[in-house]
């Protein structure tokens, strides 16, 4: 690799890192403003124009606060947990293509840090490592509420990761690729969200649980657990948890956009020198839209009870994921085997199997459904 290649590489790393930090800053501001709007409040107004610098002010405040380590804490683990929360959150973004390939110094540079051939698996791996931060922080604090919060959310995140992987499996089967850039280029005609709508829904619900956002924010259920796993953290270490959580949210939204909403694809009237900007703007727009939906859900739905959360994950989402993987298989294989086309035998069989899958889902739901005497037990 020549010096220019290295420069481009380092430049991309810096841009992604800084971009994520800035996007988190704007995202937290947006979240506070949107929630405030929904509650007919004004939200932050004082720091910067319309309060846009509020996150910066918060960060500076946290930076200068005293970091207290509890006497009972397991020091090394306690120190390292915030880093484990933050690093995978950033790393997961490495495989997300945030724009069309561009020409720099006569080279084609993909706007993506690393186009791994196991891109989707990398995402799953990084989100799994993020779970360690929660359980280690909860355990090493040497305190009861963090321990409870940590245990709770570990179980939650592991459970919902299963359903999330199933949604991803369906997408991988449908696209035939694990590589993120291939998944994006395969969505040229139709975005995956249309043929894979159940998977999209499944992924969105699991993403909420995976990044501990309401209504699945049991990890830090303020009313029950003080602040959950990061109760004992203060100052800069708490800031790292906070940052990691929001980077995770932005990342998971970016992944949802890449896998289901066609990534950076869109329409762009301009050509020439500014042509590279179009895809990036489309990507940002789509991520913002998904983030908005997440904020809307936060503003609407109350937190779920723990047993119902587990019920929902294991008894509904995972079966739905399994059946949808089955249906996707039918869609892919049957038209090939028995002839496709609008009224081909294979197409009819595929549609029939999808309907059959949902009928079976209904039966399973009834068999597993909560009985009357169990309600509010």
């Amino acid at each position, binding site marked *: 690799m020549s010096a220019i290649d290295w420069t481009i590489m380092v430049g991309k790393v810096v841009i992604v890192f800084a971009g994520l930090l800035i996007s988190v800053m704007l995202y937290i501001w947006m979240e506070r403003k*949107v929630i*405030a*709007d*929904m*509650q*007919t*409040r*004004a939200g932050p*107004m004082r720091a910067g124009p319309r309060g846009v610098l509020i996150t910066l002010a918060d960060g500076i405040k946290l930076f200068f606060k005293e970091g207290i380590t509890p006497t009972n804490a397991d020091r090394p683990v306690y120190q390292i947990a915030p880093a484990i929360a933050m690093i995978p959150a950033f790393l997961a973004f490495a495989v997300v293509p945030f724009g069309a390939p561009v020409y720099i110094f006569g080279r084609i540079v993909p706007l993506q840090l690393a186009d791994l051939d196991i891109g989707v698996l990398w995402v799953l791996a990084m989100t799994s490592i993020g779970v360690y931060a929660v359980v280690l922080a909860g355990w090493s604090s040497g305190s009861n509420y963090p321990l409870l919060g940590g245990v709770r959310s570990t179980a939650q995140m592991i459970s919902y990761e299963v359903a999330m992987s199933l949604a991803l499996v369906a997408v991988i089967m449908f696209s035939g690729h694990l590589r993120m850039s291939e998944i994006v280029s395969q969505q040229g005609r139709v975005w995956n969200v249309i043929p894979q709508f159940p998977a999209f829904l499944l992924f969105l619900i699991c993403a909420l649980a995976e990044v501990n956002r309401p209504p699945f924010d049991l990890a830090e259920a303020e009313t029950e657990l003080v602040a959950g796993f990061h109760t004992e953290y203060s100052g800069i270490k708490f800031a790292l948890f906070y940052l990691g959580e929001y980077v995770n949210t932005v990342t998971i939204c970016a992944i949802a956009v890449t896998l289901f909403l066609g990534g950076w694809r869109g329409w762009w009237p301009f050509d020439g020198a500014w042509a590279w900007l179009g895809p990036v703007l489309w990507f940002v727009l789509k991520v913002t839209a998904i983030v908005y939906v997440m904020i*809307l*859900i936060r*503003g*609407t*739905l109350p937190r779920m009870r723990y047993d119902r959360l587990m019920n929902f994950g294991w008894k509904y989402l995972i079966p739905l994921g399994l059946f949808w993987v089955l249906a996707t298989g039918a869609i892919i294989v049957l038209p090939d085997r028995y002839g496709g086309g609008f009224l081909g035998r294979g197409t009819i069989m595929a549609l029939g199997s999808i309907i059959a899958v949902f009928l079976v889902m209904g039966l399973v739901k009834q068999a597993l459904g909560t009985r*009357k005497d169990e309600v509010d037990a």
Partner: protein
Amino acid sequence: MSDEPTTSDPERRPVTPWWAITKGLATVFKQTFRRDNTEQYPKEIVEPPPRAHTGRHRLNRHENGLEKCIGCELCAYACPADAIWVEGEDNDPADPVSPGERHAKDYQINYLRCIMCGLCVEACPTRALTLTSSYEMAFTSREDAIFTKEQLLEPPPPLGTDAVAKEGR
């Protein structure tokens, strides 16, 4: 199969979770477009209604300039927070401070103690003590929080002129 409770009241009919969630999201989304009620307080000061008795006290005078307060100390007795100090004195018949026999030689209200309940105003037999709507009462020392008789006799300064409140602008 279905043993759901049935009712003719459409409001109480059970809804499916998906419908409930969708409706809830739509309701919250609609709220976004309502104007918010927040006042940007130190930047813009909204005048309180004319008879909003939400602020500090004032000692009133008769039209001829005599003080209404007769130094009876009923306000101090009524005060649940023990915030009022009154010291009465006989009027000099040649140069009376108030109509009647007695007047308040000293009158102090400690606003670190005062809970703005208004019981003193209810107790006052001569309407000498009333509440104003001057709510800007931020202090930088304990001494500043004790208002003397001279301060209480003055009308409160207009809203927005308080030095401490100005700092936040």
